[in-house]
């Protein structure tokens, strides 16, 4: 009896399933030839792509205004500054955002810069932003902070990067809300304060030991990371800019193994590399007062030291800006 009921139930389920998708079994009976299928699929994809491009055009901001479609819109504020007013752009993740204060640098050497870094900015985004600044400014130097060279540089980053470039709808799709509300051209946030630098004053000391000790381990840049770095270098060369790699002070994430790998890549590719973590660099970071979170990010006191140090080095090595003023 149980078997009968089971069979009955199964038959009913099968009927129901077939009612909704009669193709499931025997769906290949009318299958077209492979070539025919491929041609039709390509045709469909072409029309679909055309429609997505039209939608992309609708949702992409016409002016480089800050909109809800952008994650951390302050990283794009270089588009709002006077054209050709920037000498230097910073890209990278929160390590860069909290370490380099353009206002300090300008005060020190008169170099006009913008910090386009943001928390969790991926290397692909850094490259894209650096590349984009050339559409607005004759940037002389691109400073790529190195922390994000070692984070999330896998296939997902590549996919997101391709998606953003090939179909801007994927990036700006959320602007449908602004369009629906008639606010597409509004700028609800305005220009970011401190030229993109994230100013924090509080102090949480780093209490660990010497993080730059050689532990004998090795770290390598992924092939994907190297591909994007080569791309960035090429873009800088094409636009007459200099690429500079900088490792900001970071006691919790940086290591000697990273220094070795970055120095290797920089040497191989003829790129200038500054590592503020090396004791020999003499940046003067005092981890008991210069960090805001126990060693990962600098506070304003630490950022002032790092920014002044970098301004001095850029003047000394590239002649960018004026003779550094004395520290106040």
């Amino acid at each position, binding site marked *: 009896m149980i078997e009968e009921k089971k069979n009955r139930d199964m038959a009913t389920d099968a009927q129901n399933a077939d*009612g909704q998708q009669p*193709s499931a079994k025997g*769906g*290949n009976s009318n299958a077209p030839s492979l070539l025919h299928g491929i041609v039709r699929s390509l045709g469909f994809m072409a029309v*679909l792509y055309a*429609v997505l491009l039209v939608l992309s055009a609708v949702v992409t901001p016409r002016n480089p205004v800050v909109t809800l479609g952008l994650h951390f819109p302050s990283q794009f504020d270089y588009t709002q500054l006077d054209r050709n007013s920037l000498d230097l752009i910073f890209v990278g993740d929160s390590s860069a955002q909290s370490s380099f204060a353009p206002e300090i640098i300008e005060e020190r050497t008169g170099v006009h810069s913008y910090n386009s870094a943001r928390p969790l900015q991926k290397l692909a985004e850094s490259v894209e932003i650096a590349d984009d600044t050339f559409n607005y400014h004759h940037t002389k130097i691109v400073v790529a902070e190195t922390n994000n060279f070692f984070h999330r540089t896998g296939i997902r980053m590549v*996919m997101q990067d391709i*998606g953003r470039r090939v179909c801007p*709808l994927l*990036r700006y799709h959320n602007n449908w809300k602004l369009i629906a509300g008639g606010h597409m051209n509004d700028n609800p946030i305005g220009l970011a304060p401190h030229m993109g630098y994230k100013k924090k004053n509080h102090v949480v000391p780093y209490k660990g030991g010497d993080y730059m000790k050689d532990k004998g381990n090795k770290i390598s840049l992924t092939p994907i990371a190297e591909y994007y770095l080569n791309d960035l270098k090429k873009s800088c060369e094409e636009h007459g800019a200099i690429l500079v790699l900088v490792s900001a002070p970071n006691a919790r994430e940086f290591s000697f193994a990273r220094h070795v790998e970055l120095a290797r890549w920089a040497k191989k590719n003829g790129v200038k590399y500054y590592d503020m973590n090396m004791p020999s660099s003499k940046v003067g970071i005092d981890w008991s007062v210069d960090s805001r979170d126990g060693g990962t990010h600098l506070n304003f006191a630490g950022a002032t030291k790092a920014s002044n140090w970098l301004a001095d080095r850029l003047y000394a090595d590239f002649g960018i800006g004026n003779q550094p003023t004395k520290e106040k």
Partner: protein
Amino acid sequence: MSLTAWKGLALYLGAFLPLVYIAYFIVPKRWRWIVLLGASYAFFWNSSKILVVYLIAATLVTWGSGLLIERAKNSIQKPEGRKETRDERKQRRAITQKRMRLVCTIGTLILLGILVVLKYGSFIQGVFIELFKADAKLPLAKIALPLGISFYTMSAVGYVIDVYRGKYAACHNLGTIALFLSFFPTLTEGPIGRFDELAPQLRAGEIARGERLVYGLQLIVWGMIKKIVIADRIAPLVGMIFTDHTKYEGVMVIIAAALYTLQLYADFSGVVDIARGSSELCGITLAQNFRQPFFSKSVNEFWRRWHMTLGGWLRDYVFYPVSLSGATRSLSTWARKHLKGNAVRIVPTILALLAVWSATGIWHGADWKYLAYGLYYFALVMVGMLLEPLFVAFFERTGIKRDGLLNSGIAMVRTIALVIIGMMLFRADTLADFVQMFKSIFAGPGTEPLVNNLWLSFRVSDADLNIALIGGALMLAVDIAHEFDIALRPLLLRHGTALRWAVGIALVAFMLTFGAYGPGYDAIPSIYANF
């Protein structure tokens, strides 16, 4: 990578699935199952890493149990050279049956034991510590759960019991069992597979072309719309109200529970659609898991249409065995002797129904609220059975047609209301929270946040809600069509290319434009992936 949140889905649909499909396509037919097996283990490894040992252990136990049951069945040979007497046959069968049952029981206990220790160990420990007021730490609390353990364990147990029952022969190929348990589209949220339905398809190496390929892709897009346009847009709002539930009362609590019901349906059925669509691309048809559940006229019917593979599994491996057990037979005998009327019919089913609904609740998680969730439905079913004679008398006396339009409509609304209450219990953080929320429905109208739009934060604007409701209406329209046996996809296929392409493109554009994904959106894990 997983099928549970937009970040994982992007990687799954953008890289993993196309690569698997291409590999599956170019490899000779007889080796295609190996491609699926490799892909499934890679998928599992990606989310669970070393916990793959549990999957391997379950696979070996399942495979070994099947072979040992077969061996036990053939362990006593018929006498050679003469006909076996009836007594000899009876004795032989009794012994082999006993051995088969022993193997089946051990195999099932090992499989369920792993599940119980990993999924319920911490909860059980907590209960003991609470009972005996012991001051102890919970070593099991830190054990991580491998991906899909509840789903693949049920498939494994089903296989072992089916082999024991002689429904089909034991499978000798370890690879087939491994693929059956690990098949990547079903790992995250099922549907729970049956070996005799799934294994032949997995080994067949068929590939979808033409309309079947289109159906597979359509299912994936439709599932994505349900997940990222409907479920993920509602999720923050539902979460906000359930988290701060003490701030709300009356209509707001009802709205939150109703929206959660929509979210769960869109989320779960969406992910299952993506799984079914992915399988369809490899020429594999997975079992249907939903059949317009919100058109049910009773909670019993609801559970025959909602998470159908779980309901089917519990029916075959819990309800029937308990119904045929000695305890139920004794209860039935007792009822016939001591009771009268409707009670004689109801009492013997109590044990089996209690077992099924307790299992339904507990399957969802190690928490008292899940047990209460199952018992809530048990209570509803029992009340329904008790009131049935009254309903019959009512319809006879009034002459109202029970299956008439009006009564059917009332029954549907009543069922939806009961399901929404159940969902409130399901979603509430604790049983006490549920009780508080349920009481607060009657505490006042609670319309103030609704009127003043205070409940819509920046993250969940009215635009979000409107798009989710449009998506919900689209889902309802599709469900209505299916309920009236209108098969939309074949219907579409019969029309010209222009219309078909227009619908396909519109759906993809709708999904990509209005989906809750990308910068600024949290990846919201699918609800059933936690189970």
